[in-house]
């Protein structure tokens, strides 16, 4: 019987995944690169080679810089806090307490809810005068505040939504990792007279490092990817104070219809994310202990 050489079989097996990846990931990425050096086609003015024009425009674009800084602040605000919270929650629901199944479910609920629904709920929380937050602060006699309508508080308000949404998701990974940790380690540490903090700092946390690396990368990607709530809550306002990079790309691409510039912005985001991933894998991986 005729038999295909192994090498051919292997490629054939890889083919479906490869086609999908090429069509929906690699080709669009390359096409984006191409579009980023072309001008946007307009009526009577077809697309032409524009060199670095789009990138020069970006350097001069105030909103781009604001979106970039906002995004950095958003990442710095959400990532450490949501990871820290996730670890605390995971340790908490990993211990033997009454109703921990219910607790786990409660912590995980925000992750399950669609972001648009979440944003609508939070929009009500933040509503001035009769929103939930206002009802609480007013009963405490604190002054009223327009959280989403003030340039200085709007980003913080969105960061809190993101943390609330993400922490439960990351908790699941930590919980899974914690259940892999052998109880004999805790017993040994106890015998040696280690405090609970020492046990966590010297034993548990290093063992959780692979999970932390994974979660960190996910958190970073999410801090760039998560923009759904902006559409509902602020539409990037007031005065671009809550515009994040991806939201800005959407705005440039689909309300300004400036495909060339949107492609250039996308390239910048791709490069930045790529760099961070290389750093994370290169630097942290060496310090990560795999069992």
């Amino acid at each position, binding site marked *: 019987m005729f038999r295909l050489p192994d090498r051919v079989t292997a490629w054939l097996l890889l083919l479906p995944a490869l086609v999908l990846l090429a069509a929906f990931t690699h080709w669009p990425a390359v096409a984006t690169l191409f579009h980023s050096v072309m001008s946007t086609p*307009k*009526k009577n003015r077809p697309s032409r080679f524009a060199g670095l024009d789009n990138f020069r425009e970006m350097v001069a674009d105030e*909103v781009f810089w604001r979106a970039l800084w906002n995004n950095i602040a958003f990442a710095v605000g959400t990532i450490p806090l949501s990871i820290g919270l996730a670890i605390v929650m995971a340790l908490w629901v990993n211990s033997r307490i009454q109703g921990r199944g219910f607790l786990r479910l409660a912590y995980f609920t925000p992750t399950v809810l669609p972001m648009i629904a979440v944003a609508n709920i939070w*929009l009500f929380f933040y*509503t*001035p*005068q*009769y929103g939930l937050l206002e009802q609480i602060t*007013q009963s405490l*006699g604190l*002054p*009223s505040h*327009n959280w*989403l*309508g*003030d*340039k200085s508080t709007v980003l913080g308000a969105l960061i809190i939504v993101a943390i609330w949404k993400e922490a439960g998701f990351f908790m699941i990974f930590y919980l899974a990792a914690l259940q892999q940790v052998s109880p004999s380690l805790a017993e040994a540490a106890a015998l040696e007279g280690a405090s609970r903090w020492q046990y966590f700092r010297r034993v548990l946390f290093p063992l959780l490092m692979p999970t932390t690396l994974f979660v960190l990368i996910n958190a970073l990607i999410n801090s760039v990817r998560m923009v759904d709530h902006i559409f509902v809550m*602020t*539409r990037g*306002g*007031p*005065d*671009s*104070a809550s515009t994040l990079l991806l939201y800005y790309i959407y*705005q440039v691409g*689909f*309300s*300004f*219809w*400036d495909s060339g510039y949107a492609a250039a912005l996308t390239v910048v985001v791709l490069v930045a994310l790529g760099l961070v991933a290389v750093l994370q894998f290169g630097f942290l991986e060496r310090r990560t202990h795999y069992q």
Partner: protein
Amino acid sequence: MKRTLWTAVLAVSALAATLPAAAQKVTEINFYYPVAVGGPVTKTIDQMAADFSRENPDIKVNPIYAGTYQESIVKALTATKSGNPPQLAVLLSTDMFTLIDEDAIVPISDLAKGADDKKWLDGFYKSFMLNSRTGGKTWGVPFQRSTIVLYWNKDLFKEAGLDPEKGPANWDQMVEYAKKLTKTDASGNVAQWGLKIPSSGFPYWLFQGLTTPNDAVLMNEAGTETYFDKPAVVEALQYWVDLSAKHKVMPSGVIEWGTTPKDFFEKKAAMIWTTTGNLTNIRKNAGFPFGVAMLPAKKHPGSPTGGGNFYVFAKTTPAEQAASLKFIKWATAPQRAAEWSISTGYVAVTPAAWETAEMKKYAQEVPQAMIARDQLQHSVAELSTHDNQRVTTALNNGLQAALTGAKPPAEAMRDAQREATRLLKDYKR
């Protein structure tokens, strides 16, 4: 009993199955529409499409809810670029230049060429046609059009010792009333604001309710120039900023458009500015008598028009375009326009619609509905230029910067004007 029901169902479905075969050829129209106001708009549109198809068995209208105005144009243009445009859509009247620049639509005046057609197009209110015509052609047909009006709570007016039957007539009076209507509780928090002019999303539109009475125009008719930094414009913005900064009768920062009607129902705001399209919503949900007034005057009264027009899309067959036109004519006929206006609160788009029996009866029951119509004579075109979304975003950012105290009004408007000039330089020929 059950059995007869089944027989009936079977008979009807058999009949339905043979119908398409029996009809000669059915032209299908995909019709994108947005929902921008409260109330069961989707149901009303579905009913309209069904009624139309019953009267015209050779045309099938598929109404497709496409989200907000913003989402709808994204969907329509994306569909057009992928070669599968809708035949018909309701989009913002201000998107006209964008749609023309993208080659997405065909002029209505090229489709409707007969003498009857010309008469039909001339039958709409002039101020609605301002955003529907350019370069000697008609590109859009007014459908769900609105203007901004002031709603006030009559109970709260009474409490404050004001005449509950009269809204503020001019800018000074609005401040004076608002001061009387702003209430502070023991701990110094404002429990009730005198006035709310929303400023999220599309503050430029509400801003036109301030610039128009101050005799300022924001753009030229060709949509290639803007005048954001003119003194009259800056003065209007100063007034808006002062309402919260100086007079303390309006909350500071950006006020959410979507929750403004709710603030009104909750008696957190005694007067609000919002679209006439919210009339039915407010009528149903306000638990107190309310009044509707034209926007207060400065040099004269004035408001921008707003809302959506019908557009017929290019890259569709002539038969589909003709069918779309037929539907538009049907939907804007006096009787229909009146029904649409009554069920939503949008302004009926032709004087003829106001002459129908239904509309006369409605105007008697809800005299507030006539305010919007009467304001039309003072109305100007909504801000619309080439590269419209970008230019209005520049203005929106400037307005929000001023309202949040980040920039003084003059500087904010100068920056917005510089950005708009840069964006529009390619369109000046």
